[in-house]
């Protein structure tokens, strides 16, 4: 319901309530007078007759409240702020999205850690080979380029498979998305970049450490 029609409804209820209250007051007055007259006919004095009638009726205030409670139109509508109404409506969705976001963040960081671990391990394992290349006169830059380049090949393959699967499976999320397309380009680009940067760091850091090692030490160790 819009704010305007809510306001109109409230106004209508209040006006209606005013009229209904007047009607009720007159009805109660009529009842008590009739009861008083009947009591007088039974032989009571005027004051006693009226007092009895009032007592029989009970508290008029309490009574008219009870009557009002019976008619839903006379009850003032519950007033809530639009913000709290909105919050209550989307609370469940919001919680689902929070959970989804948490899972997604966990998945992304686990992926990053996994890629870093695998690549760093592979590059570190080639320390001896790097030592040999350096001993034979290879330059640092070219060795690093070689190591990083080779490490990135499975990463590129993985990214291709992952992006393809994401494009195919994202439609399952359609029901949860609002205001964002299923194939939101920004999301795809950002996630790809994050994974690429992680992979590059994972290859570059151990690779650089390997090129700094004295070739003789590298050759001696197995």
């Amino acid at each position, binding site marked *: 319901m819009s704010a305007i029609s809510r306001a109109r409804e409230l106004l209508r209820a209040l006006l209606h309530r005013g009229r209904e209250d007047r009607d009720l007051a007159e009805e*109660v007055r*009529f009842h008590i007078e009739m009861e008083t007259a009947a009591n007088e006919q039974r032989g009571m004095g005027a004051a006693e007759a009226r007092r009895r009638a009032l007592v029989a*009726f009970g508290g008029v205030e309490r009574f008219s409240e*009870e009557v009002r*409670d*019976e*008619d839903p139109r006379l009850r003032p509508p519950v007033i809530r702020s639009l913000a709290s109404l909105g919050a209550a409506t989307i609370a469940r969705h919001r919680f689902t999205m929070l959970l989804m976001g948490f899972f997604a963040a966990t998945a992304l960081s686990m992926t990053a850690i996994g890629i870093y671990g695998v690549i760093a391990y592979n590059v570190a394992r080639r320390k001896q080979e790097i030592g040999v290349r350096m001993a034979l006169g290879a330059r640092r830059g070219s060795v690093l380029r070689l190591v990083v380049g080779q490490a990135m090949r499975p990463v590129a393959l993985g990214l291709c498979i992952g992006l393809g699967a994401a494009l195919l499976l994202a439609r399952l999320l359609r029901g949860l998305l609002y205001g964002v397309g299923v194939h939101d380009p920004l999301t795809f680009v950002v996630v790809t970049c994050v994974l690429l940067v992680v992979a590059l760091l994972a290859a570059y850091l151990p690779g650089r450490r390997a090129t700094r090692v004295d070739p003789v030490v590298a050759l001696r160790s197995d």
Partner: protein
Amino acid sequence: MAPDHSELLQGTLEMLILKTLSLEPMHGWGVAQRIQQISRETFQVNQGSLYPALQRMKSRGLIVAEWRTTENNRRARYYRLTAAGRRQLEADRAAWERSSSAVNWILDWSGGAA
């Protein structure tokens, strides 16, 4: 005044009001008087439940209220049965007869198979 008044059974007040109003339109006080008289003073109608009941029935469309003048030239709110109210009375009456005869069967039961 009769020596013993009975509490109205829960849920029967509306049926008795419908019955009273089915004879002729009446104001609240008249309804209370009529029920008291016809029940030979067995039932005292409590105003605290009479008017809420009337209001409830009005909002359910069983009766309508209109201001009229009494024989003594007083303004009073008269209640009149609607077609829906008449149907409700028939339904209430059927339900009442069913359950009261069931209660009587049980009270009259003196052992053995019914």
